[in-house]
């Protein structure tokens, strides 16, 4: 029979694994709740999950391609180039934003029910990932329309998506925990995302950035993620800088560790101060 010991003092850094296993389904259920709830009482229902990326693509083509004239007439259709970068970035920003507010948004559950708190930000991020897959569907249809077939390195695509997901989860965990005490976080995060948008090659290609700045820019993991996604989805797109990818991976791992440790250290107090 399992024995649960409740003690004063700080919690162990590693959450009890048997418990995570017991609640394994909760993560998925909460994610499904997030997806379902979004499209309740809408006419198009789950259709919005597809419709939204279509509209985004449309807006981006008009603004970047037609008005800002960033379309350089390269071999790859500009729209696909932008989409291949914008979709992962949208996933990243949605993950970061929703994860930061996730614990506070579930205050009722936090103060009345026990379950591994890590489930909250993780499941919230999964909602953004589900959205991303719908958007990816739209992308695939468009790529087929343009007749652009993915190159062989497309097998590495999931790796870059995982990087993007973890890049959001790390800071997301930390921000979610701090937000419980200082609600200022939710005021700051949108600006943070905005700044990152400008620092990430969403509307342009990294080739346009002077060589000496590239490594520095790779401190922003989304640079490598976007470059990697383009490289794996579009034939002829330049491969991401290996040094940059390694640097990004190191940043992601560090942020993830920091986020995880902070979250674990603060989660005991969530119910008391939320």
């Amino acid at each position, binding site marked *: *029979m*399992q*024995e*649960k*010991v*409740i*003690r*004063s*003092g700080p*919690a162990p850094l590693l959450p009890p694994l048997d418990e995570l296993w*017991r*609640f394994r*389904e*909760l993560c998925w*259920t*909460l994610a499904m*709740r997030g997806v*379902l*709830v979004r499209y*309740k*009482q809408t006419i198009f229902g789950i259709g919005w999950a597809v419709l939204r990326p279509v509209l985004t693509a449309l807006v981006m083509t008009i603004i970047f391609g037609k008005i800002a004239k960033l379309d350089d007439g390269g071999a790859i259709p500009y729209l696909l180039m932008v989409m291949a970068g914008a979709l992962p970035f949208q996933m990243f920003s949605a993950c970061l934003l929703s994860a930061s507010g996730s614990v506070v948004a579930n205050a*009722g*559950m*936090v*103060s*009345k*029910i*026990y*379950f591994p708190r890590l489930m909250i930000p993780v499941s919230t991020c999964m909602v953004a990932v589900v959205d991303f897959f719908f958007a990816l569907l739209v992308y695939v249809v468009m790529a087929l329309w343009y007749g652009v077939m993915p190159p062989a390195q497309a097998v590495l695509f999931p790796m870059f998506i995982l990087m993007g997901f973890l890049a959001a989860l790390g800071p997301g965990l930390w921000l979610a925990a701090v937000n419980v*005490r*200082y609600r*200022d976080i939710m005021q700051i995060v949108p600006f943070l995302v905005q700044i990152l948008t400008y620092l990430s090659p969403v509307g342009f290609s990294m080739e346009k950035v002077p060589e000496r700045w590239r490594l520095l820019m790779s401190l922003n993991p989304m640079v490598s993620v976007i470059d990697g996604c383009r490289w794996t989805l579009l034939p002829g797109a330049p491969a991401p800088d290996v040094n940059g990818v390694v640097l990004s991976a190191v940043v992601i791992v560090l942020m993830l560790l920091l986020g995880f440790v902070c979250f674990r250290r603060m989660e*005991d*107090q969530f*119910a*008391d*101060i939320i």
Partner: protein
Amino acid sequence: MTQAVTVTGIGKSYRIGQLFEWQLRHTLVSWLKNPLAALKRNHTDPFWALRDVSFALNEGEVLGVIGANGAGKSTLLKVLSGITRPSEGEARLRGRVGSLLEVGTGFHPELTGRENIYLNGSILGMTRAEVKRRFDEIVDFAEVETFLDTPVKRYSSGMYVRLAFAVAAHLEPEILIVDEVLAVGDVMFQKKCLGKMNDVARGGRTVLFVSHNMTAVRSLCTRAILLHKGHLELDAGVEEVVERYIHHAAVELPVFVDTADWPRREQDNLKPGLRIQSVELVGVEQRAILTVGCPLKIRVKFTVSKNLPETVFGFVLKSADGVKLMECRSGMDESSRIRSLSPGEYVIETNLPELPLGPGYYSIDLGARCEDGGLDHTPDVLSLLVEEPQAIDNLWLRRVEGVFRIRSHWTTPETVI
């Protein structure tokens, strides 16, 4: 017999004012004002919501946790559920723990009944397969078959609560922690919930149960503990603990209140001339506990400092939530009119031959008003606890509806020819 729950020296402290002091702004401002002081932790006295609580619970025992508001009951359950970490002490729970601290937490109003059953089930720690297995039972218990695919935001509050309780009640933990969930729903449903809880208890599960409903505690629990201001005051049989709670540990119910030095509101004292010195419940010993239908006698001492014209006395009986139930006033008939008062000390008594109130907590506002506009007023001067007479020991006979209780006469049944 094995111990399912062992609690040793559990305490939980909060730093008072913590919530406000932790605002970033406050921290920044104080740091700017005095960079050195901010480095030191400020030592405010902690508030102990729970202190040095120890008890053990054998497998299959049903423990009632009793105490006044703020005694630490909910904190104890939160600590044992793992929601919040204790500040000191240790607790061991052997077996799977399921806790139900609030009905319907985790329900999402936009989701349908069906979706919410699965969602809530997994939040409470059930797997999808477990919920599936018990799905029909849950729906059946909640009586919501026809509304399964309706969003719960369109449910009546009764349906909502029923569904929420049903999910939680079909959890199958070895240790069940329940906080005051029976306070919701109508009488029929409460009965059903109690029945379900009884099944759970009979099924050999260990249960910790917080309630203000002494009837429920009496019928469900095999043992009880009494908490008072965060400390464990009594750990004994149910009857003993319930008795102690009602008679010794609950709110203070003085029978004599000295009101001479009470601060008066200014508008009550424009033309002072009369001052209520004390109010006393007559014929009641120690604490203001009365039984339904007993006489209520109040003695008021007051002083008069000048010649007063016609004066009336009155008291208002209020329910625990402040609703004015009725007023009893002097001067309503010729014999009780007070035409004038000269300076001096007086005693006046009022008497209700049969207190027309059902069980519960009540309070009394007492006042005097003069024809010339002067008045004195002592709000909530007495609190009363009214109980059912002990003679009715059959529990189901005790469930009488309504605030008021007036003696009614019934004929014996006669055969109709």
